[in-house]
């Protein structure tokens, strides 16, 4: 657990995590963005869903009962938003096919806005690394992807992942195992 995570969890024990929403955003936005970026592989889309996630959290803050950690609750919102996004995108593709509307090709959002504060070399390196990670992660099924990222990137326990993804712990273990087998195959393949 890094300092940011520790600070975030410590703040939840003392008072309402939503008392200062600005602080709340600052504490969790990096983790949520990281999770969403790894899931989508598209920086702009990840940013858009991160914003949507905090707006939902603000609107639904009364539904947070405190029986789970704040980040678990927030991650659940984020995961549901990603699922909704891909569901609606799938329907959008069908709508396009039905209407024979090919005038607006899908934009490659990752290409759109370069980070202005980093050097071009850093930007390029990050892009390459993101593409490599995305390439692997996209090959996993959506549940495997969600579970592997929550475990490997966010360091969540099986129970926490079970709460976030609304799946039984046994199912979580099974998906994690399959995702891990794929990950091992790719990483070993890279070494050869």
């Amino acid at each position, binding site marked *: 657990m890094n300092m940011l995570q520790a600070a975030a969890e410590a703040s939840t024990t003392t008072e309402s995590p939503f008392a200062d929403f600005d602080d709340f*955003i600052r504490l969790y936005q990096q983790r949520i963005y990281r999770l969403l970026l790894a899931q989508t592989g598209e920086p702009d889309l990840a940013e858009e869903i991160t*914003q949507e996630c905090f707006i939902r959290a603000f609107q639904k803050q009364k539904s947070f009962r405190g029986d789970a950690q704040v980040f678990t609750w927030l991650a659940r919102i984020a995961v549901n938003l990603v699922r909704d996004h891909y569901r609606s995108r799938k329907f959008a593709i069908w709508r396009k096919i039905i209407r024979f509307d090919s005038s607006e090709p899908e934009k490659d959002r990752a290409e759109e806005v370069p980070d202005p504060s980093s050097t071009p070399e850093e930007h390029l390196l990050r892009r390459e690394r993101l593409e490599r990670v995305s390439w692997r992660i996209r090959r996993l099924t959506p549940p495997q992807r969600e579970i592997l990222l929550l475990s*490997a*990137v966010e*360091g969540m*326990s099986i129970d926490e992942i079970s709460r976030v993804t609304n799946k039984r712990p046994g199912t979580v273990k099974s998906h994690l*195992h399959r995702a*891990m087998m794929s990950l*091992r195959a790719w990483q070993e393949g890279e070494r050869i």
Partner: protein
Amino acid sequence: MISIHLSDEEITAAAAGERSPRVARHLEICSDCWHQMAMYREHMTNLRQDVCFSASRSAIDWGRQSRSIMQRIAGTRSAEERSRTTGWTLVTAALSLALILFAFVGYQSTPPVVAPSGNPISDAALLAGVEDRINEDVPDALQPAGLLVSEMGGIGRQSNAPHSHSHARTTQ
């Protein structure tokens, strides 16, 4: 003696931080399983590093994003307030309209109120008026019927002569 090796699923769960006492005991004594778990952990660490590096941004960017979120929240808040105000305005307008309609319909259906006259009529005077109206002359149009009644009265008096005195007394 080393018990049966852990399954891949158990090793994955152990790498993810979930260790039952049996798994923990086995990992302490079995170097093969321990190495496999360490390898899985390394894969997870590599993935984490890749993701963290890809998602790294400057403090300026994070600040921009948090401001943007706060702006959007403020926007949704004012939109909610606007819609709430609009809702209340609509409800108030509908209620006012209903009230006006109700008042109008009520006004139409109420019977006309007779304004009280300056000199109130007493009960005795009212009764006297009714009696006068009963005893007043038969209207012209009903004169033949009045003649018929008087004629029939004459016949009746002749046929019931012994009872006529008592009847006449009671009517008087």
